[in-house]
Structure formats: structure tokens, C-alpha cells
């Protein structure tokens, strides 16, 4: 059956009460009037944080949490508590609420559903009024939504699964400094994924040796090379050494190929002042791109995005550290939320998974991340883990990066899973080539161009992939050798994070 005939239940943002859940989605229990403010402790669901009749406004921010209450705790009360603790509530009634428009500021849980096939877990939909948030600040958004509630005792676990960001809020952010279209125009590269490689070994190379790897990889045919997340300024290589030798390598490779090349110079450092100093030096040397790590924090990321926009610089983000809170299904923050925040924050590149490589990521979930990065409008697609319709209001597009355990022999699968607007990073798959780094780079580039050519010609490249590669290898020894060395390398492990909804055939009308 073709995919467009597969149907799933879409969850509207308003209340829906299927009969089997009617005992859970009860009517409002909110205590109103004078009694609401009597001193003492009141259940959250009675304080106005559970409003099943509430119709979310177009300007509301909506968060979807996966709530796992402690044994014996009512799921509605647990969900109301999440709404309360992530907005106005404290553990007891306070009279000072009455000095404010408290009902407006209360986050409202308007729907609680059991998670399919996961006893004890519930999806809680919570709406937040736009006035609860400072415009253009991920720090403020995240301090509200994930600031306090994740350690709340009545919960065993809590996960922020997805968010609906209203256009009114999206428009308060700069968005990606450069965006996919302008990046392609600047790099003069159209019609194919870009190719990159992370310099290896990640630690220990001197500046001069490091630049050698960059030169070989770029001259061989890659568009970009990349610092790894933990290459900053260590005893074996001071950052200025790295920048100087890398730019020699970039310029030499540009002259040798007649193509624009770049290397992501990681400016991550201990303070903003140091990061600005490194970014300025990268600019002075003529680099087209700099890089930061997710661990520098949301505010630092937004600052660097503004700097990048002011200085015509592409900004690469390495999602260092994200798996500490994105990977487990029951607790933390889903990567799709991080991807949304990063598109708002304004980075140009983000690592978003490979599907076939060595790091976590099932195909459907990864597809959801890629759509969030690249589309102007994301319709809700539960089978990809995307719970809400999301308009991006022409905010620039964010280039996803696929990195970690991929090689030329998988080119057809990569193109099929990830599409054209993506950076494919073959670190080991370039540097580990038996004939050397240049040969490794050439193998990847030839494999890619051959696959794009075949796709555009209308061939069934996914199934004919190995054949297409073998044919291209007839006139390219490095590709032949790469296919031989890595032919059996796959990483087939069970994913820890998958969508909760699977497509089921629709009932014929």
C-alpha cells in the first residue's frame, strides 16, 4: 500500500474524548471564587491547572509531556501538577495570586491520554499563554517548560515530547543565521548533499598535522571538514595553530579544485569573550564557517547566531551532550524539541542522525527531526513522532548533518532516508580509506554524484544502489577499494526511542 494511503489518528489541539478514555478526561474540577484562595493545600487539578474544556488559542504555546506518575498517583493530578509547576503554581495556595490575572497565567492541562502500549505512562497536553514568555529567548522558554518540573516527587519520570510554537512566538526569533538556500549560494553547491568529514584522531594532532588531514580531505573532493566537539585549545594544539593551518589547507584545496571549501572551526571555549575572540580570528582568516557545541548553553548559542548573522558566517552546531537527556523514552527532552529550539535559536547546521550509522536513531523518528529542520510547515505526523502542526513562518531552514559510522557503500540508503539537503559526514569513511585520505574523499564524492545522476535519470536507485556504485567504481579505483573494505559494515541495533504510533490502514468508507 502506498504511504499516502496509510492513516493515523491525528490529535487535534482541542479536546477529544474517545469513549474508552471518558473516565479520565473528566470535566473541570477547578474550585472557583473565594474558596479557591483559602489558605492550605489544594490539589493541582482543583487549582485551575486541569481544564479539559479549554480550547487552546492560536497564540498559545502547547507542550506535550509523557508523564509517568508514581504508583497510586492520579494521572490527571500528576499532569495538572506539571502544568502548575511549569507556570504559576507553588505547593500551597498563595493570596498574592489575587493581585494578578492568575487565570490567564496558569498553564492549562487540557487533555490526558494513556500512551499506547505503555502501561503507567500518559500524554499530557498543556497550553501556555504567550505572555508567560519573553520574546526571543530560549533560556526563558526552557526555564519555564523544563526548569522545575522534572524532579517533581509525585512523578517517576517525565519527558517533553513535542511543542507547538505559535507563529506569534516564532517571529520573535532571528532563526538560522544563513539558512540552507544562502549557504548553497555562498558555497556554490546545488543539487546534491554536501560532503564532510571530521578530522581524526580527534585528540593529539598538532596544528600542522591536523591541517594535513584537512587539505587531503578537501582536495580529494569533500566540501567541508570539521573539528570534533572536544577540539578546543589543548596542550597538543592551541586554537590559533589549528585555525592558521586549517585555513592554509582550505585555500590550497580551493585553488587546486576551483571550488569553494570550508572547515568548521570550533570556537567553543570557557567564556563568551573567548568565543568571540576565536570567531573574530576565524573571520579575519577568511573562514566561511565556524562551529559551536550544544553544551555552551542556549543563550551562548543565540549570541553566536547573532554574531554569525552580522558577520556573514555559517554556524555549525554539534549536539554534544544531547543524548544525556534525549535518548531515554520515559525521561528527559525529545531531540525533536531540541531541534525546534535550535531552529529558533539560529544555528545553520545541526547533527540530526544518520539512520544507518553507528548512533541512535530509528528511520521514522529521524525523518521527523529532518522535517522540523527543513520544512516551512510541518503537519502533525504521529508516525514520525511529530504531534503538532507547526508553521515556521519563513524562518530560515536548518541544514541537518548526518555523521557517525557511515560510508560510501550506503550512499543509496542515505539519499533515500535523508534526501538532498543534508551534509553527509564520512570521518572514518574518508580518513580510514586504505589508499589514503584523498582517495577516501574521492570515493565518497564519486559515489554521491553517481547516485544523484541515477536518481535524476529516474532509476530505482534504492534497489539498484549497489549496482550503480559498482558501475561508478569501474572508472574510480578509490571507490572500488572503499566498497571492498566496508562492504559488510552495518550497525543494526534496536532503537531506544521510537514513535508511539504506527501507521494502520484506514477503514474504507
Amino acid at each position, binding site marked *: 500500500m502506498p504511504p499516502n494511503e496509510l492513516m493515523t489518528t491525528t490529535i487535534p489541539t482541542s479536546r477529544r474524548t474517545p469513549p474508552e478514555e471518558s473516565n479520565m478526561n473528566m470535566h473541570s474540577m477547578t474550585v472557583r471564587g473565594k474558596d479557591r484562595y483559602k489558605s492550605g493545600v489544594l490539589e493541582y487539578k482543583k487549582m485551575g491547572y486541569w481544564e479539559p474544556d479549554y480550547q487552546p488559542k492560536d497564540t498559545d504555546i502547547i507542550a506535550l509531556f509523557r508523564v509517568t506518575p508514581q504508583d497510586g498517583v492520579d494521572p490527571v493530578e500528576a499532569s495538572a501538577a506539571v502544568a502548575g509547576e511549569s507556570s504559576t503554581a507553588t505547593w500551597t495556595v498563595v493570596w498574592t495570586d489575587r493581585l494578578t490575572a492568575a487565570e490567564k497565567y496558569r498553564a492549562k492541562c487540557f487533555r490526558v491520554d494513556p500512551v499506547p502500549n505503555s502501561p503507567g505512562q500518559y500524554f499530557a497536553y498543556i497550553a501556555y499563554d504567550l505572555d508567560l514568555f519573553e520574546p526571543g529567548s530560549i533560556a526563558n522558554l526552557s526555564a519555564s517548560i523544563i526548569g522545575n518540573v522534572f524532579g517533581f516527587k509525585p512523578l517517576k519520570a517525565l519527558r517533553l515530547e513535542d511543542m507547538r510554537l505559535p507563529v506569534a512566538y516564532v517571529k520573535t526569533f532571528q532563526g538560522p543565521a544563513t539558512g540552507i*538556500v544562502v549557504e548553497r549560494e555562498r558555497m556554490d553547491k*546545488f*543539487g546534491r548533499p554536501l560532503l564532510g568529514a571530521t578530522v581524526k584522531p580527534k585528540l593529539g594532532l598538532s596544528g600542522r598535522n591536523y591541517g594535513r588531514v584537512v587539505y587531503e580531505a578537501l582536495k580529494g573532493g569533500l566540501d567541508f571538514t570539521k573539528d570534533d566537539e572536544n577540539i578546543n585549545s589543548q596542550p597538543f594544539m592551541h586554537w590559533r595553530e589549528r585555525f592558521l593551518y586549517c585555513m592554509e589547507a582550505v585555500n590550497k584545496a580551493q585553488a587546486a579544485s*576551483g571550488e569553494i571549501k570550508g572547515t568548521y572551526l570550533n570556537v567553543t571555549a570557557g567564556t563568551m569573550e573567548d568565543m568571540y575572540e576565536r570567531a573574530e580570528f576565524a573571520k579575519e582568516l577568511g573562514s566561511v564557517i565556524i562551529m559551536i557545541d550544544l553544551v555552551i548553553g542556549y543563550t551562548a548559542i543565540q549570541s553566536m547566531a547573532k554574531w554569525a548573522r552580522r558577520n556573514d558566517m555559517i554556524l555549525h552546531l554539534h549536539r554534544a551532550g544531547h543524548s544525556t537527556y534525549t535518548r531515554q523514552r520515559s525521561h528527559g527532552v525529545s531531540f525533536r524539541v531540541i531541534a525546534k529550539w535550535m531552529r529558533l535559536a539560529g544555528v545553520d547546521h545541526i547533527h540530526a542522525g544518520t539512520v544507518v550509522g553507528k548512533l541512535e536513531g530509528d528511520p521514522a523518528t529521524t525523518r521527523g527531526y529532518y522535517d522540523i529542520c527543513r520544512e516551512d510547515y510541518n503537519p502533525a505526523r504521529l508516525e514520525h513522532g511529530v504531534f503538532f502542526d507547526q508553521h515556521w513562518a519563513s524562518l530560515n531552514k536548518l541544514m541537518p548533518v548526518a555523521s557517525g559510522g557511515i560510508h560510501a557503500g550506503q550512499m543509496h540508503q542515505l539519499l533515500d532516508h535523508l534526501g538532498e539537503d543534508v551534509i553527509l559526514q564520512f570521518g572514518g569513511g574518508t580518513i580510514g580509506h586504505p589508499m589514503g585520505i584523498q582517495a577516501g574523499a574521492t570515493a565518497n564524492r564519486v559515489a554521491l554524484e553517481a547516485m544523484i*545522476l541515477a536518481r*535524476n535519470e529516474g532509476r530505482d536507485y534504492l534497489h539498484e544502489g549497489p549496482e550503480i556504485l559498482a558501475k561508478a567504481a569501474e572508472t574510480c579505483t578509490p571507490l572500488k577499494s572503499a566498497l571492498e573494505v566496508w562492504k559488510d559494515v552495518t550497525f543494526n541495533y534496536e532503537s531506544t526511542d521510537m514513535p508511539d504510533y504506527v501507521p494502520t490502514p484506514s477503514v474504507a468508507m
Partner: protein
Amino acid sequence: MRITQGCFSFLPDLTDEQISRQVQYCLEQGWAVNIEFTDDPHPRNNFWEMWGLPMFDLRDAAGVMMELNECRKVYGDRYIRLSAFDSSHGWESVRLSFIVNRPKDEPGFRLERHEMAGRNIRYTTSSYAADRPEGRRYD
């Protein structure tokens, strides 16, 4: 040297039949194909000369191939590329670009290094061919 700009420069030069299939793909996507030529292939030379206007509303690749052959008759000693423009909202730029003609001899680029303060170096890339006047660079 071989300039590797464009989408298919690492493959053997495309035959006219292969070029035609790529053009057909572009037309089927609703993109307008443009023929451009230059004798200054500097990587940052964005604006190659246009051989007429992008061909809007075309359905058959044969039209582009005919123009390409006309262009080759006049500028066969230079670089010629095809670029496909997508006018849809959110893109409004080039979608595919590839070289379809090259000079017999590609002399490549000189990299000049100006030593600055500290170990800083200012780099300038210039085409050897561009040392000669426009129009006589690949004689």
C-alpha cells in the same frame, strides 16, 4: 587540473544523452534551465555570462539541447554550465548546476600568500587563464 565545480564534475564528462536526461528531470520539477558560459572560472565568480534567458515554460529537453549546441558553436573553448532555477516560495534559487563543456586545457589557479602580522596569511586565488584578456584566455 580539472575544475570540479557543479554537481557531476567527479564523473567522466557527461554525454549529450546524459545531459538531456538531467535537463528533462529539471523540467519535470518545474524548474527553468539556463545556459551560462565563462572564461573566468574563479570559484567566487557567480555571474557567468547568460546565453539568452532561462528557458521558462519549456517541456522538452530537446529545446535546451539545441540551444546548448548553438552555444557550444560560439563558445566551445570555454566553460559552459546548465543551471536550473526553482521559483517556489522558500527556495527561489538554483536547484541544480553542472558543467557541460570545458576548455581543452585547464591551467588552474595560482594561490598567492601575503604574509601579515603574526603568522596570519592573506590568500588570493587567481585563474592563470584570467591573466590574459577576456575572450582570448583559452586560445
